[in-house]
């Protein structure tokens, strides 16, 4: 399979940036080699679709707003009623999901080439992301493994809370370089490392 080019391109500069005096506030990197599949259940097939996602990925969800699960490179989360992102580092993910989810259960859209996944991690992750998104990133409002659909500057994005100081951001691929630069500016004051 041809290797997917990163849309961040020359803006992706590894190393330390910004205010180094206080240490590294956040580490940012692009997660690559992922399949990103969106599944939309019909209003009366949500429990069956969740069971099917569980059998294809091993990640079983209850039908609860925003609920998600993370296991290594694999993750799944809801971001609207009956709508889920299913993500894994395997090119067969879409086929595997299609083999258990027929059109009378849900629609399946491969977003692998349409989204860029940026992982933001570190003690200042909540602080930096709060500059870009008008949602509450604290753990009581946004529990670990849960997903969100929200906006940055009127542009849609999805976010999953990975662990106590890590978030994955799903941004439009065509907007990823611009977003990456904005994220860098937001992180400058706390010092950041690009891996």
């Amino acid at each position, binding site marked *: 399979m041809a290797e997917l080019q990163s849309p961040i391109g020359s803006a992706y500069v590894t190393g330390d940036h910004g205010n180094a005096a206080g240490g590294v506030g956040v580490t940012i990197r692009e997660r690559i080699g992922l399949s990103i599949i969106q599944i939309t259940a019909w209003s009366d097939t949500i429990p069956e679709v969740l069971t099917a996602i569980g059998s294809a990925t091993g990640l079983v969800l209850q039908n609860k*707003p*925003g609920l998600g699960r993370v296991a290594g490179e694999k993750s799944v989360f809801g971001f609207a*009623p009956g709508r889920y992102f299913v993500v894994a580092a395997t090119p067969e993910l879409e086929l595997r999901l299609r083999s258990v989810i027929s059109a009378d259960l849900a629609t399946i859209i491969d977003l692998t080439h349409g989204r860029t996944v940026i992982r933001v991690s570190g003690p200042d992750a909540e602080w930096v992301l709060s500059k870009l998104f*008008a949602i509450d990133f604290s753990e009581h409002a946004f529990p670990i493994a849960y997903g969100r*659909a929200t*906006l940055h500057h009127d542009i*849609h994005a999805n976010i999953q809370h990975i662990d106590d100081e890590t978030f994955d951001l799903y941004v439009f691929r065509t907007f990823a370089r611009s977003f990456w630069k904005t994220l860098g500016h937001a992180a400058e004051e706390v010092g950041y490392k690009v891996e």
Partner: protein
Amino acid sequence: MIIKCPYCGPRDVIEFTYQGDATRKRPEPLSNDPDVWNAYVYDRSNPSGLHREFWLHSGGCRQHLVVTRDMTTHAISSVAFARDIASGGQA
């Protein structure tokens, strides 16, 4: 103003798109009475106090909502999925 989406939780109003008065009743489709259609399309009562409105959570879960809001204080007393209300639920 913050609207508490039944799926996404409390979100800033910038994430929502106003879709108008939710109390209007569409006239009988076969009606050709221009006054009835004119009233449906253009007449708004602009009440003071409680009002029901459609909002789209365009910057979140993209669900259509029915919001009950006090027009004088902007206090929101209920938010529900429009489809639940269309199928008989109460806001």
